[in-house]
């Protein structure tokens, strides 16, 4: 499964990657574009080669810390309209503690480490780079 895509993210596809008969708990996180202050969409760009490597590092670290968990992550790039997902993370594990913890760990690492940038597009035609960490 590709970690970066320009297509809509499909939760079912991520679930299929991580779930199995041994893993009874699955935690999914979806980050979607909010309609803050006239925002109609966000254009996502990435340093793609580095982002892919960073995602693989994050997933490898997560696997080391929660060996029973299986985790998948996809980030969408390009123009994403309000309400659609820019990121989807799925973590499945035998028990729910690890599923929640691994999923949360990945989104926090993504926010800190992925070389991806957002330009907000507004209904009035204006555009603006988002440069502060958000807390979505």
């Amino acid at each position, binding site marked *: 499964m590709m970690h970066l895509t320009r297509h809509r993210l499909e939760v079912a596809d991520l679930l299929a990657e991580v779930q199995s008969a041994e893993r009874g708990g699955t935690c999914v996180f979806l980050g979607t574009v909010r309609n803050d202050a006239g925002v109609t969409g966000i254009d*996502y*760009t990435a*340093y793609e080669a580095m982002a892919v490597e960073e995602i693989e590092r994050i997933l490898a670290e997560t696997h080391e810390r929660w060996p029973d968990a299986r985790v998948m992550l996809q980030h969408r790039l390009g123009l994403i309209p309000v309400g659609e997902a820019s*990121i989807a993370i799925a973590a499945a594990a035998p028990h729910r503690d690890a599923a929640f913890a691994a999923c949360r760990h990945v989104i926090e690492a993504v926010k*800190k480490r992925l*070389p*991806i940038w957002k330009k907000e597009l507004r209904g009035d035609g204006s555009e603006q780079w988002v440069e502060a*960490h*958000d807390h979505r």
Partner: protein
Amino acid sequence: MGKVSVRFFARYAELAGCSWSAVNVQTPATVADVISRVREVFPGTQAMPPRPLAALNQRQVKLDATVKEGDEVALLPPLSGG
């Protein structure tokens, strides 16, 4: 002198007016040396912060990391993925 690839992303690409270039620096150099050279060649990048985030060969590094000929230095605005 050695040639180092330089990549600009997001707002920094707008400041530089380009997204992919190369500069000549005395190698071995540090990432900070490359950035100083970049500020001369692309004056718009003087609007970057004094110590921008940087990656060397696709891995985030401190500005004192050593750069060899042929390396790729990327200048990264504050990350906002997710």
